[in-house]
């Protein structure tokens, strides 16, 4: 084997290994079937499924399946995803475009209902923060959106407005309808709103890179600094962010998933997918 051929070999083996483990789920047979290459890190054995306590303070996802009926027939986007998130745990979700990351986040956030399976939300969850700017009413002004959200999450309205105005720095634009906002402004508002509610678990779908430098920094500080004890499900392609903040990584491929404690390894694996 030449040196040149090596990266692809690793890639293939890793990819196959992931598929195998996903299929056999839990049996460690898969890792023995391949001869380890020179500098390949071996897959950690699959975690034993912890005893699940319903009502415990954790987010539990159990055997989640979601399929959509589309023009080309039924598509199973998620096919039996299971994992847990304890309080304060930060998990990265990795996968190619269309691997089901956003769908997973939407199911966890309760935006859509799973085809089968269970999501137990033992922590107070944010709504999924995503590019679409979901959770806001486009025809209402930023201010009215703030009032609305403060009300449905039972927060004092005046304080929430003050916080949002201060954090989002939208100035007078807060009085304009959200549909007139640029995507950056929309994200500022959405972030400010979710920070104001102060959730125990944040669902973030690829939006950390939005906004100007200063606002990004502010978001990061708010997300990872002040509320360090809050859990997070972070969908991101940004290696640096994930390495810096996440303690676990979930790799999605073809509707199957695998949870890794070694984030760096998961990132390597993901880059080969």
């Amino acid at each position, binding site marked *: 084997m030449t040196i040149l051929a090596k990266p692809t070999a690793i890639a293939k083996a890793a990819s196959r290994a992931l598929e195998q483990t996903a299929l056999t789920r839990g049996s460690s047979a898969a890792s023995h079937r391949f001869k380890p290459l020179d500098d390949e890190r071996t897959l950690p054995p699959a975690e034993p499924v912890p005893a699940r306590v319903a009502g415990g303070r954790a987010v539990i996802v159990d055997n989640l399946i979601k399929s*959509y*009926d589309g023009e080309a027939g039924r598509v199973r986007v998620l096919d039996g995803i299971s994992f847990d998130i304890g309080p304060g745990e930060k998990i990265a979700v990795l996968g190619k475009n269309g691997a089901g990351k956003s769908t997973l986040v*939407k199911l966890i*956030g*309760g*935006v*859509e*209902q799973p*085809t089968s399976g269970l999501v137990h*939300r033992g922590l107070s*969850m944010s*709504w*999924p923060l995503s590019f*679409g*700017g*979901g*959770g*806001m*009413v*486009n*025809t*209402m002004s930023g201010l*009215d959106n703030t009032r*609305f*959200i403060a*009300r*449905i*999450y039972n927060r004092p309205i005046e304080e929430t407005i003050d916080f949002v105005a201060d954090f989002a720095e939208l100035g007078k634009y807060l009085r304009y309808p959200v549909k007139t906002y640029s995507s950056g402004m929309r994200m500022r508002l959405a972030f400010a709103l979710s920070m104001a509610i102060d959730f125990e678990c944040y669902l973030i779908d690829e939006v950390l890179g939005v906004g100007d430098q200063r606002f990004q920094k502010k978001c990061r500080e708010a997300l990872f600094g002040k509320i360090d004890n809050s859990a997070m499900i972070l969908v991101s392609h940004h290696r640096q962010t994930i390495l810096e903040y996440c303690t676990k990584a979930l790799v999605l491929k073809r509707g199957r998933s695998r949870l890794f404690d070694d984030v760096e390894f998961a990132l390597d694996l993901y880059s080969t997918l």
Partner: protein
Amino acid sequence: MIRDIMSRYGRENIGFLWLIGEPVLLIGGIIVLWSIMKGAVTHGVSMISFALTSYSMLTLWRHIVGRGTNALKLNTGLLFHQNVRVLDTILAQILTEFISTFLSFLFCYLLLYLFGFVDFVDDPLLMVIAWALMTLFAGGFALCLGALIEVSKPVERMIQPLMYFTLPLTGSFYMLDWMPQRVRDFLLLFPMVHAQEMFRAGFMGPRFSFYYDGWYLFAWGIIAFSLGLTFIKRAERNLHVA
């Protein structure tokens, strides 16, 4: 919870008075139009009171079914919040229509009453009951339709013709008393006619004869609503939020 969304609709456009104003214009316009077309009195009934009762009821029916079914699509953004369910958005829409159309009816009525065009209502309670029962039935109907739209696309295209064909079945353009016995029996199969007649009975009083059965209407309302609830529950699973 529902009140929260209600307030949302209230503030949606700055002139939230339009919510009432729009039906007022419609009802007012129809009253004028019909009066010109058919003269001040038809079949011994004052045209104004006939048009007023007809059109406010018809507006209620059309708005609830039309907007109730649209609510699903317009409010998907709200579903991002865990404690907002599909049902909430539709119920809020139905309630808003219930109140706003009634307010516009009241507004029209007060105006006409002050100018002496109509008499004082005979039985307000009966009218309110008719109004509420109509909302119940129309709401249930809207829920069913909304759910069906979510499940299959062709149904969505059929809404417009369907709504158009139900127009004569709402009882808004005639009074059952004018109809021959057989037609009347047929029309009385439709709950909307019951509501319309009941509403008119409350408005005009015993000077005319009306045909309605409140319990029949109520039963239909309950059936439609419970069917609608189950359908929506089903449709929620298939909902794809972009």
